[in-house]
C-alpha cells in the first residue's frame, strides 16, 4: 500500500492515574489509534498496570510460543522453577484480521522459598526470563511482572488492542506503541513494549549505542535475544534502578547524560555527580534518537534523547498524566486539559502513584 507523503515512524502514548484509579483499555486504544499513520501494521502493543489485583503477589508471565513443543518445554521448566498457581490462555478475539498469532498463554507463578538462599526473588525471576528467551526454542516472555502485563503482536495497535480484548482490563497505567520498523524485523516478540519484571518500555526512534549497551548488560547476566534495540532500555532501568539502587533522576542522567559542555557549567556538587556517572556508567548512555515511555508499578517516566530528535507532548488533567508522540492523541481522549507542554530534550516527565513511599 502506497501512502501519499512519507509518514514518520512509530507512535507512543501513555496514560496514568496518579490516584491509582483504574481505567479500561478502550481509552488507550483510542489514543494510539489517533496516530494510525505513524505505524505500518508491523507491530502494536500495550503495557497495563493493576490488571490482576486478585493475584497481585504472583508473577504474571505472559508467554508467546511458536508451537506446542515450545509450550511444553517451558511448562516443564516452570514446574521445576516455580509454583504454578494457575495457567490459562490469554483471551483473544480472533475475527479482526490479526494473522498467525503464536500460542498466547499466561501463568501466575510463585517462587519456592528454597530457591532463594543465595539470590533475591527478583534476580531469580529475571534469570528465568533470560533463560527462557535464550534457551527454549520458540518461547518468548512478553511480560513477567506482578499485577501487570504486556499485550503485543504484529498488526496495527488498535487491532492488537481489540485482539487482546483490552476493554476487559482495567489499569492505572497504560502505555501503547504503534510500530514502523526500519532496521529490525517485525515479529511478535519484537513488538513493543519490551519488559522485564515490572519494567516496560515503548520507544519511538533507534538506539545507535545498542552494541555498547548490549555488551555492558551481558556482563550483568542479561541476554539480549529479541533482535530489537529497544530491549536494552528495559534492562538498563532494571540494572540501574532495581539493582544499583539509582533514583529515577540519576538513572535519567546515566541514560541521557548531559553533554560535557553543559557539565562544565554545572555547580560543583552537581558536576561531580555528572562526571562520576559519565565515567562509571558511560556504557549505559543511550545514543541516537528516542522518545520513550517507561512503565513500572509505581509510575510512568517519559524521556527524550538529548537533542530531541523524536516528538513528545505531555499533559495533565486532575489526577491524570498523559504523554504521547502527538498532542492530538492526548486531546482525543482528554479534550480539556489543565496543562500541556513539550518536555525538553533529555529531561524526564515523571508520574508517580500518590500513596506509595
Amino acid at each position, binding site marked *: 500500500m502506497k501512502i*501519499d*507523503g512519507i509518514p*514518520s515512524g512509530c507512535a507512543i502514548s501513555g496514560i496514568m492515574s496518579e490516584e491509582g484509579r483504574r481505567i479500561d483499555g478502550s481509552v488507550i486504544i483510542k489514543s494510539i489509534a*489517533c*496516530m494510525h*499513520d505513524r505505524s505500518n501494521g508491523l507491530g502494536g502493543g500495550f503495557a497495563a498496570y493493576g490488571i490482576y489485583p486478585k493475584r497481585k503477589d504472583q508473577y504474571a508471565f505472559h508467554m508467546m510460543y511458536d508451537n506446542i513443543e515450545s509450550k511444553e518445554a517451558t511448562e516443564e521448566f516452570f514446574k521445576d522453577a516455580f509454583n504454578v498457581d494457575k495457567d490459562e490462555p490469554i483471551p483473544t478475539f480472533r475475527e479482526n484480521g490479526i494473522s498467525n498469532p503464536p500460542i498466547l498463554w499466561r501463568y501466575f507463578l510463585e517462587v519456592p522459598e528454597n530457591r532463594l538462599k543465595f539470590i533475591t526473588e527478583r534476580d531469580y525471576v529475571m534469570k528465568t526470563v533470560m533463560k527462557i528467551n535464550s534457551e527454549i526454542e520458540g518461547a518468548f516472555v512478553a511480560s513477567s511482572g506482578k499485577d501487570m502485563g504486556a499485550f503485543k503482536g504484529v498488526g496495527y495497535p488498535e487491532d492488537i488492542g481489540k485482539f487482546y480484548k483490552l476493554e476487559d482490563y482495567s489499569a492505572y497505567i497504560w502505555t501503547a506503541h504503534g510500530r514502523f520498523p526500519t532496521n529490525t524485523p517485525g515479529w511478535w516478540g519484537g513488538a513493543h513494549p519490551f519488559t522485564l519484571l515490572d519494567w516496560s518500555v515503548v520507544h519511538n526512534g533507534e538506539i545507535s549505542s545498542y552494541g555498547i549497551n548490549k555488551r555492558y548488560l551481558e556482563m550483568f547476566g542479561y541476554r539480549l535475544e529479541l533482535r530489537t534495540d529497544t530491549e536494552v532500555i528495559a534492562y538498563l532501568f532494571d540494572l540501574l534502578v532495581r539493582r544499583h539502587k539509582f533514583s529515577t533522576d540519576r538513572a535519567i542522567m546515566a541514560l541521557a547524560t548531559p553533554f560535557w559542555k553543559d557539565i562544565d*557549567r554545572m555547580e560543583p556538587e552537581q558536576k561531580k555527580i555528572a562526571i562520576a556517572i559519565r565515567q562509571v556508567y558511560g556504557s549505559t548512555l543511550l545514543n541516537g534518537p528516542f522518545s520513550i515511555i517507561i512503565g513500572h508499578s509505581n509510575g510512568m517516566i517519559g524521556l527524550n534523547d538529548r*537533542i*530531541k530528535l523524536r*516528538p513528545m*507532548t505531555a499533559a495533565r488533567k486532575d489526577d491524570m498524566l498523559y504523554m504521547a508522540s*502527538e*498532542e*492530538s*492523541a492526548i*486531546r*482525543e481522549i482528554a479534550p480539556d486539559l489543565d496543562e*500541556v507542554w*513539550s518536555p*525538553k*530534550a533529555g529531561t524526564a516527565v515523571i508520574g508517580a502513584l500518590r500513596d506509595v513511599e
Partner: protein
Amino acid sequence: MRIDAKGMHYRPLNKIIREAAASGEKEFELDNIGGQRYIGTGLNDSIKITINGTPGNDLGAFMNGPKIIVNANAQDGIANTMNAGEIVIHGSVGDIIGYGMRGGKLYIKGDAGYRVGIHMKEYKKQVPVIIAGGTAGDFFGEYMAGGIMILLGMNGKAPLVGDYVGTGMHGGVIYIRGKVDPYHIGKEVSCLELGEEDMKLIGAYLKEYCELFGFDFNEVMGGKFTKLVPLSLRPYGSMYVY
C-alpha cells in the same frame, strides 16, 4: 464550507478541501480536527481555512497562497517548504516548523519547539517570516539561509531560546526580544544592536502580529531586542576543499 472532521482520516478531508477550492469555494471552517495531517498542504488557491481542534503534522506544507487560522495548539512540521500564504496559530507549536520555508508568514501566539526555521531561505521579494510570542527550543534558525525570524518571550519563561541558535546560519536575520547568553549562540553568528531600519522592519510585522493576538504593540516594541546575523555567507566554504 463547514466540515465536521470528527473521526475523519486526512485523505478524504483534504480531498474535500482540494476539490471545493478548485470549484471556487473561498472559506473553510473545520470542526473537531484531531491530528489530521497535511491540511492546506500544496494548495495554491487564495482560500481561508479556520481550524478548530489540534491539526496533525505538516500543516500547510508546500502551501502557496492560502491563509490558515488554528484556534488551538499545533504540532510538528508546520509550513514545511511553504512558498506563500499565512498561518496563524492561537497557541503553541511543536518541532521543525518552517523547515526550508521560502515565503509567507507563520505567526505563533505561544511557544515554538526545537529546530524552528531550519534552512529557511529567501529570494528577492520572497521573504518568509516567522514570529513566535513565547520561547523556542534548540537549533533555532540552524543553517538559516534567508528570511526573518522574531522571538518575543512574552510569557516570561526561561530560557528564552535553547542551544545552537543560528548554528551554520548564512543568510537572513533573527531578532530576539531579550538577552541571549552567548553560550547558546552558534559560532557562525554575530550579535548586534538594532538600528532604526531594524525597528522599522520588525515594527511593520509586529503591528500586524499584535493585532492578531491582542498583545500591546508598545510593550512588545519597548523590549530590548538582540539581532543575529551570519558572520559569513559561506561559513563552510573552505570545508572539504583541498
